[in-house]
């Protein structure tokens, strides 16, 4: 009854009054559904509502007639959008979704596919997302006067992260595509990530459609960009589409070009089922949801499937497309991209890149993706030591949706129990931190990020070091060699900044490999840089010295031999494991001094004198002292205002509580954060 009365209120406020006359039995339900965004239209079907009840919803009318059987591979196009950050990729995706009526114009949030808070805040895409759209189009050559209905095409847009850290996600998404829109800002032109993403797409044999975006800007210079595209990628200027996702200018050409230029997915609908597992995430209500691309054959609800990697068998409980929310279709055919719910208990079972097939059928597994390579490691510790379980839980939940992070428990004398996590890169690490804090409310202290070094000892043994603390300060065996990972960095800058950028790179032990002009004003440089040197603050410094005009990207390269030493930080003679770092011998002195000075600034005076030292082995290379606190007393006439006095002291207590204690020294959390900024 309560439901009913509430529904009636809802009825009055909405325009569905006539329902109660035509079908009082269902009216309250449809009104509820209609007024509650939580009940996405897909669910209407489960309630057995027929179309008229939900006719207010654009989606319902369509969904109930989605019959994927109508879309053979010839009518399917799978494509993605790749771009340098901020070149308008997500806005373009929004427009295409609107254009096809997949989302309503002005409804929903902008950057529709960027679902994570961190993505919206930073304006970046971290997780690949997929959306299925339908678009009617007359294939060229068809008779314009043909009164026959235009064929409808099924288009899968696979949104990808732009940043190199997530190129793992990019390559995954590209594996399901046959073409890509390469979006370039009409004013900024080709940038470092444009280069990197172009090559990823190019190597995946994708058809590339250059889109010069933001042509409405006063500084737009599409011709210059066309010339850059020709020079750098050998793309025909005639092929470039000129658009403004903001004003809508030129957008009408985009989907026709996708349909006309990008080939339909290959694959054989009569072959046994093979599908590629693109991604997976955990949904509280449905369990593990896998994004899949059906390469060959057909998948139906109720089918039994097996994983080529694990041999596990699952039953397909639900299958459908992302339109743009999960929309059940009961079937997925060759060339289509969608989701499956299969009763997997954890995303760990869903190995991205795995081939899924019908059980009892034998298929050739599809080529998988190269596994994620962890380039940056850092310790993550609960800010408050007692929160270990909470952090553990948060990390577990987050890695459910981000399998690219490696996690191992470790413990530190200074910070207690925590985790050593491996990340794909710096941004990835940052994003992971932010997601931990935002989505899971965890407060963490992270240690100085480090890269995996390889040490070789006199007895010939080799050790990979992911945590500086694990490297003995005074090893019993002599170190004969040390290798560190390097990257190939692409830097594109306006030519006036060449001087300082070259200085920066050589300070960071970089080796210039290439130097060329991409047009009259922009310089393209390639460097080999030790990964360690760009882990901390390289990009920020580059950005600030070029007033934000530099673009930077990198890819992994081989290890190189270097003279790397372990730098210990000691407080009152006691090494603080969480502050140890590995640095190049020649820079040790400087880094040691910087670290010690930073600490002096951030550790408050305490009851006793504190000495801060930086040491290589037993050799002290830098030293500072913080003299003992002399006075901390409230000698003031507060009268009987005990409360006020107490508040002050409680504040002091809380301050102490947030500190980490090493020996007798209290270290504020900010000190750990500050150390991260010393390169």
């Amino acid at each position, binding site marked *: 009854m309560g439901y009913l009365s509430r529904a009636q209120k809802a009825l009055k406020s909405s325009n569905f009054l006539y329902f109660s006359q035509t079908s009082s039995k269902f009216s309250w339900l449809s009104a509820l559904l209609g007024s509650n965004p939580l009940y996405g239209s897909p669910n209407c079907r489960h309630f057995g509502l027929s179309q008229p009840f939900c006719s207010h919803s654009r989606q319902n009318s369509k969904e109930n007639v989605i019959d994927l059987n109508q879309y053979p591979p010839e009518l399917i196009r799978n494509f993605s959008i790749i771009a340098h950050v901020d070149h308008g990729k997500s806005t373009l995706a929004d427009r295409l979704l609107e254009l096809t009526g997949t989302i309503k114009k002005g409804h929903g949030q902008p950057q529709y596919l960027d679902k994570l808070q961190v993505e919206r805040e930073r304006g970046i895409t971290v997780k690949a997302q997929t959306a299925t759209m339908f678009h009617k189009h007359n294939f060229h050559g068809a008779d314009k006067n043909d009164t026959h209905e235009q064929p409808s095409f099924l288009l899968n847009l696979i949104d990808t992260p732009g940043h190199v850290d997530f190129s793992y996600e990019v390559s995954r998404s590209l594996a399901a595509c046959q073409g890509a829109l390469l979006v370039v800002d009409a004013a900024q032109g080709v940038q470092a990530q444009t280069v990197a993403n172009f090559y990823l797409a190019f190597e995946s044999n994708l058809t590339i459609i250059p889109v010069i975006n933001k042509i409405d800007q006063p500084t737009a210079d599409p011709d210059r960009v066309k010339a850059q595209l020709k020079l750098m990628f050998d793309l025909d200027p005639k092929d470039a589409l000129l658009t403004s996702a903001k004003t809508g200018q030129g957008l009408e050409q985009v989907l026709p070009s996708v349909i006309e230029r990008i080939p339909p997915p290959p694959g054989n609908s009569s072959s046994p089922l093979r599908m590629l597992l693109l991604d997976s995430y955990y949904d509280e209500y449905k369990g593990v949801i896998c994004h899949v691309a059906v390469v060959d054959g057909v998948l139906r609800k109720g089918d039994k499937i097996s994983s080529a990697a694990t041999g596990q068998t699952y039953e397909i409980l639900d299958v459908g497309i992302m339109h743009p929310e999960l929309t059940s279709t009961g079937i997925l055919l060759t060339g289509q991209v969608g989701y499956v719910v299969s009763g997997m208990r954890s995303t760990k079972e869903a190995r991205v890149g795995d081939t899924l097939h019908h059980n009892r059928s034998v298929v050739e597994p599809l080529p998988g993706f190269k596994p994620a390579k962890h380039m940056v490691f850092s310790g993550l510790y609960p800010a408050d030591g007692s929160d270990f379980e909470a952090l553990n839980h948060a990390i577990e939940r987050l890695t459910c949706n981000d399998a690219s992070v490696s996690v191992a428990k470790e413990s530190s004398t200074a910070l207690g129990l925590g985790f050593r996590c491996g990340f794909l890169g710096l941004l990835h690490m940052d994003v992971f931190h932010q997601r931990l804090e935002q989505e899971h409310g965890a407060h963490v202290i992270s240690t100085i990020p480090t890269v995996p070094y390889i040490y070789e000892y006199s007895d010939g043994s080799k050790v990979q070091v992911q945590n500086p603390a694990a490297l003995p300060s005074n090893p019993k065996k002599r170190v004969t060699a040390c290798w560190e990972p390097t990257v190939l960095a692409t830097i594109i800058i306006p030519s006036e900044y060449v001087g300082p950028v070259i200085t920066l790179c050589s300070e960071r032990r970089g080796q210039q490999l290439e130097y060329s002009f991409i047009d009259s004003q922009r310089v393209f440089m390639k460097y080999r840089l030790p990964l360690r040197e760009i882990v901390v603050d390289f990009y920020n410094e580059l950005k600030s010295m070029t007033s934000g005009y530099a673009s930077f990207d990198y890819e992994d390269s081989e290890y190189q031999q270097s003279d790397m030493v372990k730098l210990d930080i000691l407080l009152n003679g006691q090494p603080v494991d969480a502050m140890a770092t590995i640095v190049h011998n020649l820079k040790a002195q400087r880094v040691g001094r910087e670290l010690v000075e930073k600490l002096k600034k951030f550790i408050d005076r305490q009851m006793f004198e504190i000495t801060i030292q930086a040491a290589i082995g037993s050799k002290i290379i830098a030293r500072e002292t913080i003299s003992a606190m*002399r006075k901390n007393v409230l000698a003031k*006439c507060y009268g009987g*205002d005990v409360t006020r006095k107490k508040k002050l*002291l409680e504040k*002091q207590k809380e301050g102490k509580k947030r500190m980490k204690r090493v020996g007798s020294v209290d270290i504020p959390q900010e000190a750990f954060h500050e150390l991260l900024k010393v390169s």
Partner: protein
Amino acid sequence: MRVAKLNILPWAKLNGCHDDVLLYPRPTSRSDNIRPFIRSPNYILHYQSINKMLKSTFAPIFSAFPAKHRTRQPSSTAVFRVFAHTPESVQQNASANSHTSILPPYLFHPTSAYVHLPFCRKRCHYCDFPIVALGSSSTQIDDDPRIVNYMQLLSREINATRPGTTTNPPLETVFFGGGTPSLVPPSLVSSILETLRLKFGLCLDAEISMEMDPGTFDAKKMKELMDLGVNRVSLGVQAFQEELLKACGRAHGLKEVYEAIETVKSCGVENWSMDLISSLPHQTPEMWEESLRLTIEQQPQHVSVYDLQVEQGTKFGVLYTPGEFPLPSETQSADFYKMASRTLSDAGYNHYEISSYCKSGFECKHNFTYWKNEPFYAFGLGSASYVGGLRFTRPKKMREYMGYVENLENGSVGCNENIHIDGKDMAMDVVMLSLRTARGLDLRSFAEAYGDSLVHSLCESYRPYVESGHVVCLNEQRRALAADEFNSVLFKEDKDQAKMAYIWLSDPDGFLLSNEMISLAFRVISP
């Protein structure tokens, strides 16, 4: 003689809080006759043990100087207080060996009242108290409507305040703080005292203190105030350097300082305090030394030495950063504190609380109420009271305070029902307040109230500071334990727990870092 002897013993600090018991005879006045009130049996035991201790420790001394010692019937008052039941007493079952009726000090009936008189000529640059600046132009202080109206409001608040029970004991201390209470005409002060007397009763020998500023009173006013019963003056001198008085925005100069001292002395005020501030901007060690020397020359019975706190929202808060020029550095200001402690101790003053010094027997009884965590009333703008276990700060803005008094009168505020007294909060209060005093924290009564394990963990966390000398642990005889002695009791090698009886902060090093030590205790009590 005994007193002199006491000074060199650590437990001489005791007389700070038990002076009323040990040194002052209690006149048989109305106040004693109506006192139905029984203090905690702890106290009884305590007093008895002190008396016992006194006797055993000093038997030889007493016998050596039988005629000269100043003690006048040391135990009579305590005994009288404890056993003087009156028929209305609801605590008949209380007796020295019954623990069923232990009353924690906060449930005593208040016998102290703080009265806030917020008027000043102008605001000093360091001041963030709730005050009303009258401006120097107004010469007609006596009938300034702002004062008259406020004093009426104050009376209304006092009258609207519900005393705990009908058997309320009379007030033993009244403290007029400010502001500049000495700006208020004595006739108006009189009406407040009269209101207090009618409402709560006022002991004949009650300590009635008033904060007075140089330049705001003459001998006539002083005499009038004394006639009303004001018997303790807290003189806000702050500094003996013209330039410093000016720099901190005081409304008086050096000339007024000397005049005021002369007035206080010539009027025969027998208990007055010189209030000083250290670590003022541009203050040099020489200036501070001079201020201390001149203070001692004037022979006040009491000296308060406040350390400048730069508060947000004050002129100093805008201009200065603690520890940076022109304020003295942290080290220098610590040296000022040490200098005061040494100089005043050498001149015969007891450093009985972090910022208070006195000649023997001249501790401020009112302030000791605070430090003993005992209840007290408070009246007036922004003042803080502690009644029935509840700390309450009145509104700091006049309009809101007015509303508060109105609500109090029509009964919509002020009933202390359902007060939840949190044990941890109480324990923190006890530690915070008692560690400010030279008497320190009584570990045994603390353990009785909050458990042995809390005392143990407190001692454990203080271990490094016992070693460094910031914290001193005393045995029952108030003899300091050496660090290794302390450790062996702590780790139960020495089973004699009684060895740990008190903890106090050393003077001056422990006092100087008292915030550290107290917040450390807070962490132990409420992690």
